[in-house]
C-alpha cells in the first residue's frame, strides 16, 4: 500500500517535471520565433528595394526617385563623432576605476551611476542634449546628435574597459613596475595591450548600439533632405529618415524605409556576430 502511494507520488513528480521542461523548451522556441519573424519581415520587404541608387542618391521628395545616400553618410559621420567623443572619455574613466581606485568609495559610486546610465532611457539623453546644446545654439545640429550618441557610448565603454583591465593579471603589472616603468607606462604599454581585444569589443558593441538609435536623434540632429557637410547644421541620418519614411503615406518612401531597416539591421547583426566570433565578448551586465 505504502509502496503504491510512493509510486503515485513519484509519477506525480515526474509528470510535473516533464510539463515544466516542456514549457521551458516552448518558451525558448517562442523567444527564437520573433528573431526569425523579424529577419524574415526585413528580408521579404526590404531586399527587393536594395540597389545601388539606395546607397548613392539623396533622399527624394515624395513621388521622386532617390535613395538613402545622404542619410547613410550622415549616420556614419554621427556615429564616428559619437565614438570619438565618448570612447576616449569612457576608456579613461574605466582606467581610473580599474587601476587607481578599485576599492575606493568613489569608484563604487561611479560604477553604480554608470550602470544606471547604461540602461537609462535614451530619449531622456535626447531631451538633455536638446536643453543643453540645441537651445543654447538656437538650432538643431549634427554636434548635438553626436553628443547624444556619445552619452550612450560613454557608459558602455567605461564598463567594458574596467572589466577588461581587471582581467589583466597583477603579476604583469608588478613585473613591469619592477623593471622601473612608471605607473602610466605600466598602464598604457602593458595593461592596455593585454586588454586590447576586450576594449575593442566594448567600442564595437557601442558602435552597434548607437548606429540604430533613433530616439536621442529626434530632437538633436533632426534631419536634412540634402547632402549635409557640416556638423553645425541638422544632418540626415538613417534612423530618423526610416522613422519619417515608414510613418509616411507614400509607397516609395515606405519602400526606402524597409531597405534602410534591412541595411541597419544587417550591419548591426554582422558587427555583433564578428565581435562574438573573433573577440572576447564581455559578461552580460546592465
Amino acid at each position, binding site marked *: 500500500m505504502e509502496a503504491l502511494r510512493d509510486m503515485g507520488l513519484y509519477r506525480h513528480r515526474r509528470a510535473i517535471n516533464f510539463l515544466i521542461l516542456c514549457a521551458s523548451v516552448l518558451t525558448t522556441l517562442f523567444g527564437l520565433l520573433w528573431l526569425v519573424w523579424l529577419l524574415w519581415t*526585413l528580408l521579404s520587404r526590404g531586399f527587393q528595394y536594395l540597389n545601388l541608387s539606395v546607397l548613392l542618391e539623396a533622399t527624394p521628395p515624395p513621388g521622386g526617385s532617390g535613395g538613402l545616400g545622404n542619410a547613410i553618410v550622415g549616420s556614419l559621420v554621427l556615429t564616428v563623432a559619437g565614438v570619438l567623443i565618448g570612447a576616449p572619455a569612457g576608456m579613461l574613466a574605466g582606467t581610473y576605476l580599474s587601476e587607481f581606485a578599485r576599492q575606493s568609495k568613489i569608484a563604487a559610486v561611479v560604477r553604480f551611476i554608470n550602470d544606471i546610465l547604461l540602461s537609462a532611457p535614451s530619449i531622456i539623453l535626447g531631451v538633455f542634449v536638446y536643453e543643453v546644446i540645441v537651445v543654447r545654439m538656437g538650432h538643431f545640429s549634427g554636434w548635438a546628435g553626436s553628443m547624444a550618441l556619445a552619452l550612450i557610448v560613454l557608459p558602455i565603454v567605461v564598463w567594458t574597459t574596467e572589466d577588461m583591465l581587471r582581467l589583466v593579471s597583477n603579476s604583469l603589472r608588478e613585473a613591469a613596475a619592477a623593471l622601473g616603468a612608471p605607473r602610466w607606462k605600466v598602464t598604457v604599454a602593458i595593461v592596455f595591450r593585454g586588454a586590447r581585444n576586450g576594449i575593442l569589443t566594448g567600442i564595437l558593441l557601442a558602435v552597434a548600439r548607437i548606429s540604430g538609435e533613433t530616439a536621442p536623434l529626434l530632437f538633436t540632429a533632426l534631419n536634412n533632405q540634402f547632402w549635409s557637410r557640416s556638423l553645425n547644421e541638422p544632418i540626415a541620418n538613417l534612423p530618423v529618415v526610416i522613422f519619417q519614411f515608414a*510613418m509616411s503615406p507614400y509607397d516609395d518612401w515606405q519602400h526606402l524605409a524597409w531597405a534602410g531597416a534591412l541595411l541597419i*539591421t544587417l550591419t548591426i547583426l554582422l558587427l555583433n556576430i564578428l565581435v562574438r566570433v573573433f573577440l572576447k565578448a564581455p559578461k552580460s551586465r546592465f
Partner: protein
Amino acid sequence: MEEALTSLMKTRMRRGVIIDGLFYHGTRIFAWAVLTVMVAILVSLFMGAAPAIGKFGFGFLVSPAWNPVTKDFGAFVSIYGTLVTSVIAMVIGVPVSFGIALFITELSPRWLKRPIGIAIELLAAIPSIIYGMWGLFVFAPFFGDHMEPWISGFLGPVPLVGVLFSGPPLGIGLLTAGIVLAIMVIPFMSSVMRDMFEAVPPLLKESAYGMGATTWEVVRHAVLPYTRTGVVGSIMLGLGRALGETMAVTFVIGNANRVHASLFMPGNTISSSLANQFTEAVGEMYTSSLIALGLILFLITFVVLAVAKLMLRRLSDTRGSRS
C-alpha cells in the same frame, strides 16, 4: 660618466612622476565626468520642467488633461500607458525569460548552448525602430485580425477581467505595445538569469540530484533560493528597460491621449509622447510639460534600475566575483 647617468635617471624619474600625476588626474576627471553627466541630466530636467511644475504642482501627476490650445497639461494618461504596457511586458516576459534561462542552463545539449545564447542576444541588438516597423506593419495587423477577436471571445465574458479585453480589435494599442516590449526585454532578462543560474555551485545542484530530486525540483529548491535576489534584479532590469523604451512603442501604441479600460484601445506612454510631440511643441508651457514627463520617467527608471543594481550587486558580492 656615472654622474651623467644618475642625472639622466633623475630627470627620467622626475618626468615619470609628472606624467604619472597627469595620467592619474586625467583618468580621475573622466570618472567624475560620469557622475557629472548624471547630475547635469537631473538638473537640466528639473530646470526645464520648472515652469510646468510651478503651474500645475503635484496635480500634474494625476491630471488626465493634455490640451496644447488651453495650455492645460497633465501626466496621468502617459504614466498610465507607461505602467500598463510595462506590466504587460513583465507578465509575458518574466516566465518566458525564466524558461529560456532554464533551457540553456539545465536542458540544452552543450553544443546548442552557445548558438541559442547568441541568437537571444542578437534579439537584443536589433534596434528599437525595427521592432516598431515590424510591430506596426506586420505584427499589429496579424494580431488585430487573428488574435484579438479570439482573445476577446475567450476572456471578454469573464467578469472583472473581461473589460480589459473588450472593444474593437484595432491591432494597435496598449496590449500590442506591451507584447512588443515583452519581446524586446526578454533577451536582457534571460541572459542575466542564465548567468545567475550558471553561477550556482555544481556541488549544490549535484547534492540535490543525489537526493533523487527531479530537474525541476533542483531548480525550484536549490537554484532559485540561491539566485533569488539575482532573479528579482534581472526582472527589475527588464522593467527599467521596458519603462523607457521609445521607438517601438511609438509605432504601435496609437498615440491617443485617453485612458480606456480596454487594453485593445490606443494610448500613450511617456516616451511616445516625447517622441511624437517634442519637436512640434510650441510655447514654453507645452515644452516644459513634456520635459516634466521626461523627468518623471527618469526618476521612475532611476529608482527601478538602482534597485536592480543593488540586488544584482549583493549577489555578486556573496559570490566574491567583485574582487
